């Protein structure tokens, strides 16, 4: 390994002088592939003047189906989910294992990211205020999808000889399908998923994050970091390297501790900004509802707003992508369905709470001053909405965005790793190779114009929804059985409540 590290950094350094040309070469090489993959995955069907990507429709139909099939578990299971996280059902005789709270916190750290700050701004820019309404609806429906996928993640995980665990859609597809006499199909789907999550981990879970972190830092620094993407990239890569290869847990631990506080801090200040814009609140809310059903001023009208809202919601909370089920599979519990319950809180926190708050910050600012952000979009737009009321806020916001990006990268490095080990086995050598590749991409993310590369990665992440949701349909009866049996035992008192 000592030889590999200098080689990696030499590679990165060598790529620096040719920086500008390097960008263009990569873009030229990948653009045609990106557009081909993109147009296939995001194949659009015209609907009432709007363009509906098939894959979004596929996710929405899945989420609606699981909501009904699981008897609105997103509402009926909510209270039980909170009780589980609070530790009411934790066995007092086995403390020291991963708690439900920790499982939730880890999964939320992975999903709360740039999307919650910047993605919402994109949704509102393209889909109008009404997109917010559909974003919330998508978050609500996504809770059911998460419930199903995370239950399966725990149920069909692998226990490795060293006592660690590996789980996720590739495992439940392979093993679950085999149980149902579709072993061959399950193997193909599992492999396909593993490849997809690996590539996704290098794109939206990695380059996109490091790139956005760099852009944010540069904005706050007033352009002082122009052309220094390589430096920021190398620093970020070095920190990620220290955590995932160097095993310097303290960095990860510090980040994982700060991120939740940043999320609370963010929500708190967002609420303050919303309150400072209080005269605009009724109008902003009215705009959300009006826009949701009339789609005024949006291309494709209400359907256009719906599509954008749903698309951004999936991007943000990852329901249907299956990534959270990889994180939840790590939890040792005798009842897989408890992880399902806990996980349904993720889209709630991520989308229904945090995204909605961001949308209101932007919405109320827009009502108060339609041109508050100028030409800014994405994170910069959200930042401008904060700056209008709290002048110094962009700095902590950039810091927060950096940390969100970092924790998302750490989580995704694990998701990608599980795809990798599924394909190539659990060997330590292979895992190190994967981690080195991951670090190299962190640095690359800050150096290249993302454009086409990101498009491919986006497309692939959405593409793995196809086998994943298909797997969820096929295995949903098992989840329902688990849920019914578990709830009956909770009601009868066979599963004991300890605390509170």
């Amino acid at each position, binding site marked *: 390994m000592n030889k590999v590290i200098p080689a990696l950094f030499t590679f990165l350094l060598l790529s620096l002088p040719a920086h500008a040309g390097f960008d263009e070469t990569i873009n030229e090489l990948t653009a045609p592939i990106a557009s081909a993959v993109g147009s296939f995955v995001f194949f659009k069907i015209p609907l009432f003047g709007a363009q509906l990507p098939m894959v979004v429709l596929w996710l929405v139909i899945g989420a609606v189906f699981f909501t009904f099939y699981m008897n609105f578990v997103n509402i009926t299971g909510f209270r039980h989910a909170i009780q589980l996280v609070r*530790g009411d059902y*934790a066995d*007092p005789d086995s*403390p*020291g*294992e*991963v*708690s*439900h*709270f*920790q*499982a939730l*916190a*880890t999964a939320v*750290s*992975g999903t709360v990211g740039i999307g919650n700050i910047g993605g919402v701004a994109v949704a509102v820019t393209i889909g109008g205020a009404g997109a917010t309404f559909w974003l919330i609806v998508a978050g609500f429906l996504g809770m059911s999808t998460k419930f199903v996928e995370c239950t399966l993640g725990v149920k069909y995980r692998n226990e490795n000889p*060293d*006592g*660690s*665990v*590996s789980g996720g859609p590739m495992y439940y597809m392979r093993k679950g399908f085999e149980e149902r006499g579709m072993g061959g199909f399950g193997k193909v789907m599992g492999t396909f998923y593993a490849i997809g999550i690996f590539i996704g981990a290098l794109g939206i879970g990695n380059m996109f994050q490091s790139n956005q972190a760099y852009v944010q830092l540069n904005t706050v620094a007033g352009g002082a970091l122009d052309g220094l993407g390589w430096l920021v990239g190398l620093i970020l890569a070095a920190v990620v390297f220290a*955590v*995932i290869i160097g095993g310097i*847990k303290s960095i*990860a*631990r510090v980040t*994982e*501790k700060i*991120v*939740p506080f940043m999320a609370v801090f963010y929500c708190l200040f967002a609420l303050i900004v919303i309150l400072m814009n209080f005269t605009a609140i009724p109008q902003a809310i009215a705009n959300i509802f009006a826009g949701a059903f009339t789609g005024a001023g949006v291309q494709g009208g209400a359907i256009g707003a719906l599509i954008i809202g749903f698309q951004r919601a999936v991007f943000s909370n990852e329901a249907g992508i299956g990534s959270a089920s*990889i*994180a939840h*599979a*790590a*939890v*040792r519990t005798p009842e897989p369905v408890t992880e399902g319950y806990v996980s349904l809180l993720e889209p709630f926190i991520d989308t229904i709470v945090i995204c909605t708050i961001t949308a209101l910050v932007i919405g109320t600012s827009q009502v108060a001053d339609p041109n508050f952000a100028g030409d800014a979009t994405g994170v910069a737009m959200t930042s401008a909405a904060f700056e209008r009321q709290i002048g110094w806020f962009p700095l902590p916001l950039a810091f927060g965005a950096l940390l969100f990006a970092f924790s998302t990268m*750490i*989580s995704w490095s*694990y*998701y990608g790793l599980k795809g990798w080990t599924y394909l190539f086995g659990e060997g330590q050598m292979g895992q190190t190779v994967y981690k080195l590749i991951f670090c190299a991409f962190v640095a690359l993310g800050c150096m290249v114009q993302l454009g086409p590369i990101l498009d491919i990665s986006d497309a692939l992440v959405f593409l793995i929804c196809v086998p994943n949701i298909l797997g969820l349909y096929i295995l949903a009866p098992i989840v329902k059985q688990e849920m019914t049996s578990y709830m009956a035992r909770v009601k009868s008192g066979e599963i004991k409540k300890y605390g509170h």
Partner: protein
Amino acid sequence: MSNSVLVAIDGSAGGERALQYAKERAKLGGAKLLVTYVIEWSPYTFNTPEENAERHVRREQEIEKATSSVVAPAVKMLKAEGIACEPLVQHGPPAETLIKLAEKHDVKQIVIGRRGQSGIKTLLFGSVAGNLIQTSPVPVVVVP
């Protein structure tokens, strides 16, 4: 109430003093000692996915390490001196866990060592002894 005393040790000098004190008391009164090691742990920390995946193994390693390097030698020493004792190793927040164990095993007294930490640290994080004294259902002896 059984005639047993819970003594908390953690491999530190304070824990060692607590053990010596409890040993002397046990010799005098014939009490049984519960030699307890609480591995500091909270269900409300934030972990990376990798840490979660390895948690089960780590937990067993932590228990094994606490047992073999601290609790087992203490138990061996006590038994050699003819004192009845029982080892206990458990994860949890220290004060709370000691109280739970004291209740579960119906002990007469809890013996702990003083850590002697600074005022600021205590102000920020509280002290095990302080929490224990405030909430324990049985008398607590803090050995200086």
